[in-house]
């Protein structure tokens, strides 16, 4: 299992052609932010590059791709905010794509049912029964300029980052997290309003404990695997290796004690904490308060104390490790979306990044204002966006 992760970068060999891919071959985007109706055809595994001036709509296209997977996409936006201002009434936004994946070709679509304010997914033109079903076909990771401050910002941003990486690996994780958050907010509402019977609290806390322990266990398991992948130098030191730790009450309890016991204790702690939680308006413990701690392995330095450049390089290293891990354990690599990443790397690092991406066999979507940034890429699908028109170059 680990052989693929620890292998040094390989030149392209003939059997790379037979390796499983996961690539969009066609993308169509409708009523999505600045894009009325945009089509990108004849895409292939390898890189897809979007260039154009600031505000042209490059990030909007990447966001549209990110909406093909469950979750709120790379801007974490509300469904209604994505809707094109030019179509406030009409049908909701939609993104549709043809995917070549490890299970063969499949049509995926996602959109907003404006009337019911509901996200909808379709797989081969039929409604998807659960969001996890979509995750089985496709996983997507991204790096955006907003994530630059990840190691300095709030624990919640790092927790969401970690959970999103876990989704790519274990599609069931998304359902667990949303169940947990649902039960958590129902309990918070009962506490706010007061007067609900103990049995109603019990019913919600039992579910919080069960899903909470499952979430913590999935994070621990995943972080251990990702940590192993991220601890291997894959780039000749260009992107530093990292150590990872999930910090949280439930997670630490799980390291030393059986899950059933931890679950029972968590439920008991929630029950005992009702009064305090009523005052504070949340829940004082649980996996919704955990954090991801990242350490620059070479320097044994916590990520938040590294230089800005080192932090960015650490983050890229993590994304690349994640892609290697997913490829090794889930048959095909994820789609990788890199928004404005190339512009912030010097030529040597940019070259190293392109080389590693080529060996991953992943489809990588990249954006940047300046086309010359991408001149070292082999055979990219190049698009120029200008005044709402997307044209192949």
């Amino acid at each position, binding site marked *: 299992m680990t052989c693929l992760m620890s292998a040094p970068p390989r030149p392209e060999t003939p059997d790379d052609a037979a390796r499983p891919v996961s690539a969009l071959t066609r993308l169509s985007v409708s009523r999505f932010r600045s894009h009325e109706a945009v089509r990108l055809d004849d895409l292939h595994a390898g890189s897809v590059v979007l260039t154009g001036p600031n505000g042209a709509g490059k990030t909007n296209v990447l966001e549209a791709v990110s909406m093909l997977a469950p979750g709120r996409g790379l801007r974490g936006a509300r469904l209604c905010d994505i809707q094109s201002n030019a179509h406030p009434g009409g049908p909701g936004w939609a993104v549709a794509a043809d995917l070549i994946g490890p299970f063969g070709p499949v049509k995926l679509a996602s959109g907003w049912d404006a009337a019911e304010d509901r996200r909808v997914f379709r797989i081969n033109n039929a409604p998807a029964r659960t969001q996890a079903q979509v995750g089985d076909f496709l996983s997507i990771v991204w790096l955006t300029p907003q994530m630059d401050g990840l190691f300095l910002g709030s624990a919640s941003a790092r927790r969401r980052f970690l959970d999103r990486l876990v989704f790519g690996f274990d599609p069931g994780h998304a359902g667990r997290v949303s169940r947990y958050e649902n039960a958590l*907010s129902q309990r918070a509402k009962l506490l706010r309003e007061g007067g609900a019977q103990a049995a*109603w609290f019990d019913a919600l806390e039992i579910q919080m404990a069960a899903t909470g322990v499952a979430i913590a266990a999935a994070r621990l398991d995943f972080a251990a695997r990702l940590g192993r992948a991220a601890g291997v130098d894959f780039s000749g030191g260009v992107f530093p290796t990292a150590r990872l730790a999930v910090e949280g009450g439930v997670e630490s309890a799980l390291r030393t004690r059986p899950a059933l016991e931890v679950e029972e204790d968590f439920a008991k702690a929630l029950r005992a904490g009702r009064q305090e939680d009523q005052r504070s308006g949340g829940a004082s413990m649980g996996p919704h308060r955990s954090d991801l701690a990242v350490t620059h392995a070479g320097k044994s330095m916590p990520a938040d104390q590294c230089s800005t450049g080192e932090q960015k390089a650490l983050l890229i290293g993590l994304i690349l490790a994640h892609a290697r891990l997913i490829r090794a354990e889930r048959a095909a690599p994820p789609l990788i979306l890199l928004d404005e990443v190339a512009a912030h790397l010097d030529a040597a690092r940019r070259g190293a990044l392109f080389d590693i991406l080529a060996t991953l066999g992943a489809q990588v979507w990249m954006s940047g204002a300046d086309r010359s940034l991408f001149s070292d890429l082999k055979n990219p699908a190049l698009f120029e966006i200008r005044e709402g028109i997307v044209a192949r170059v």
Partner: protein
Amino acid sequence: MSDGPIDHLIRQLSALPGLGPRSARRAVLHLLSRRDSALEILVRSLEEVARTTHACPECGNLDTLSPCRLCRDTHRRPVICVVASVADLWAVERTKSYRGRYHVLGGVLSALGGTGPEDLKLEALVSRVRACAIEEVILALGATVEGQATAHYVADMLRETGVRISRLSHGVPVGGELDYLDDGTIALALTARTQAG
């Protein structure tokens, strides 16, 4: 077209679940162009259903008889399947694999949706279990957080009656409401139900 009775009808129909403005317009055109064979007949059935249908005082099912056909059926076993809605009752009944009785709660506990225990037919369930020598209660309340919280709450309430309580097995997907499941999945979940509470 201005805002006459036809537009009014189209608006009414398009507000129904599963219909949008486009399909409502098509349905109305269809009805208007087949006055005798479709429109008049539909008007008569709507009137009849409106006049004769009631919620069953026993189980909450919708039927023209009171108590309903299911409650009158003496061949049904002394088992109660607890469901959130009449839609779920009909979904279980469609599988033809269940030969017991039902109890419609009229919703699930939802702090966010503002549905509390006092909004559900809970006392009536306890009375029925005690009065009718019920042997088993099956909680078929869906796999959503609300459904599972309700199942837990009901199991807790029924504990003192000593009745056996079981839940649908985990074949029901997360967030899946019964009414959306295919009959085979529900039938499987019914036979593979597990003891609860």
